[in-house]
């Protein structure tokens, strides 16, 4: 989480120094979701995300250097500069891409889950309990492809977890203004899968929920829809003036910063001390 936060802050600096171009969408504040889920995965499990996911790539094991080089358009980047910020791929880490169009990644993740099942049942390959995770936001939950995939994943009992990073805002459109039924987790049961809501600012709570959902998928019990209530501290992208969000709302969530919260937890429960945490920061 600390690496993610530091990475994103560095991106911001480079962007404002005009060293980084194009669209850059930062993840500050949402680190608990990425860490909570992805650290439970094996290398062969796959993840698919939308454009706000430098940190997902880092959590999955792609080196920070490769991601940063890609953002700077260098040939040493993970896609040799051909993909850019919104299109981080890594075959080795089974990061099947970040997609620019919201909703685009969900069928892709569903397809990866489909292949996992196909390999196990048709090609009879052993060791195929691979799971897919699809990360997407609240805005995506009003898109047709989301529902098409909830339906197919439940229909064909695919090993996938749909992870909604509900940060309440789709650029400048408030989730409440855009959605008839804002409780996204309720849409799971309508398609025949469990729908779970979790505090996305608390990495340990996210991890508990993730363990259960990933376990379900691996055991062949089918998909789960997990709604993580989270918040992005910065604007939609580095070009977003971010004028529509109420400062009181921002302050409320800033007080629940996942990194600060975890630090507090670790110290209170004597799992680590100040010196250990400082050492992590330094790295």
């Amino acid at each position, binding site marked *: 989480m600390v690496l993610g936060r530091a990475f994103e802050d560095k991106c911001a600096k480079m962007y404002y120094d005009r060293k980084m171009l194009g669209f850059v969408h930062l993840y500050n504040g949402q680190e608990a979701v990425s860490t909570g889920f992805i650290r439970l995965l094996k290398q062969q499990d796959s993840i698919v995300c939308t454009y706000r996911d430098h940190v997902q790539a880092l959590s999955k094991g792609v080196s920070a250097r490769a991601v940063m080089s890609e953002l700077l358009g260098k040939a040493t980047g993970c896609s040799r500069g051909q993909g850019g910020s919104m299109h981080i791929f890594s075959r080795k880490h089974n990061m099947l891409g970040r997609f*620019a169009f919201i909703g685009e990644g969900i069928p*892709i993740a569903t397809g990866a889950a489909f292949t996992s099942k196909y390999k196990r*049942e048709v090609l009879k390959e052993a060791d195929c309990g691979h799971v897919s995770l699809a990360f997407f936001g609240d805005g995506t939950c009003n898109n047709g492809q989301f529902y*098409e995939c909830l339906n197919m994943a439940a229909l064909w009992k695919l090993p996938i977890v749909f992870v909604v990073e509900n940060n309440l805002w789709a650029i400048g459109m408030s989730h409440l203004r855009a959605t008839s039924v804002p409780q996204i987790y309720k849409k799971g049961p309508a398609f025949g899968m469990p729908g779970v809501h979790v505090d996305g600012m608390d990495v340990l709570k996210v991890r508990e929920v993730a363990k259960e959902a990933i376990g379900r998928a691996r055991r062949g019990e089918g998909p789960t829809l997990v709604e993580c209530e989270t918040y992005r501290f910065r604007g939609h992208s580095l070009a977003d003036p971010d004028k529509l969000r109420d400062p009181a709302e921002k302050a409320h969530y800033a007080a629940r910063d996942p990194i600060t919260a975890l630090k507090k937890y670790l110290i209170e429960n004597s799992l680590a001390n100040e010196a250990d945490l400082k050492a992590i920061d330094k790295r």
Partner: protein
Amino acid sequence: MLGIVRQKMLEQSLKKIPPAVSVLRSYSSAAKQMTIRDALNSALDEEMSADSKVFLMGEEVGEYQGAYKITKGLLDKYGPERVLDTPITEAGFTGVAVGAAYYGVKPVVEFMTFNFSMQAIDHIINSAAKTNYMSSGQISVPIVFRGPNGAAAGVGAQHSQCYAAWYASCPGLKVLAPYSSEDARGLLKAAIRDPDPVVFLENELLYGESFPVSDEVLDSSFCLPIGKAKIERKGKDVTIAAYSKMVGYALKAAETLEKDGIDAEVINLRSIRPLDRSMINASVRKTNRLVTVEEAFPQHGVGAEICASIVEESFAYLDAPVERIAGADVPMPYAANLERMAVPQVEDIVRAAKRTCYRSESREIDSQHCGGRS
């Protein structure tokens, strides 16, 4: 007439015998005939048999035996895990198929018609075509998108569009358009074996047509190269380049032209992307005249691209302006007489060829007489 009788005999025998076997045994004549439908079915069957990673996905491909019966018998043979009937959700199932292909299985996605592919076009272009590049080669997408394309008969504006030009403009895609049964078999097999996304444009009105096929074509290892056109008829006076159904019209036009002393060379493009520019240019350098034919809308079309290629590479060889025959620049009308005027007819091709040979009225007079003009 005889073709229809043979077709009916074949359909009856198909009911008793699995497809791959029937085409070899139903005919006693020496020159074997095969419909496009059987050519496609047998190609799918053989590729699925050879590689268990190949599977089919689409609406009505399984229990209904295929909306146009192209996938007939395959569900019974390969089971529901390899022949998947999908809900009506083009965007969703196309994306699922592309995601599956990222992991190395080989989906063959059927669009009931390519008009419906517009609901899934984001995945065809952004998730399939561009991914190999965006990931700098880490992820390849061995997927085939197939189905009927272009005008049918009286199906109206939303069911009649030809998508060759749209897909062929996109780097990262291969676009094929078979004409004969040999094309259908060879190109579909090549498409399935290809590691990159391929858009395979069939034609509904050709499904029932029979073409002669040699033993080589019937062999299960038969395959045609992608990116190579075929000279269907050698000639020396004018080059007529066409794809899909229009190849048949071009050949008929060539017969008419022959009676008037014009010897036309007919090129069957087969591959829209990559386009066989070298063969087309070589032909025009020989004949010095070009007519392109397509059913699609004229603006920014396949014919436009071919004309540009000739002008760029073989300008000095042209003895007449290039002629471009295309569908009318209107949404396809429904009424049969209007529909006929909205697509090229053999007479349009004949007239265009004559114009390149200075044997016809000027274009201005000619365009007042008929549609099918660009």
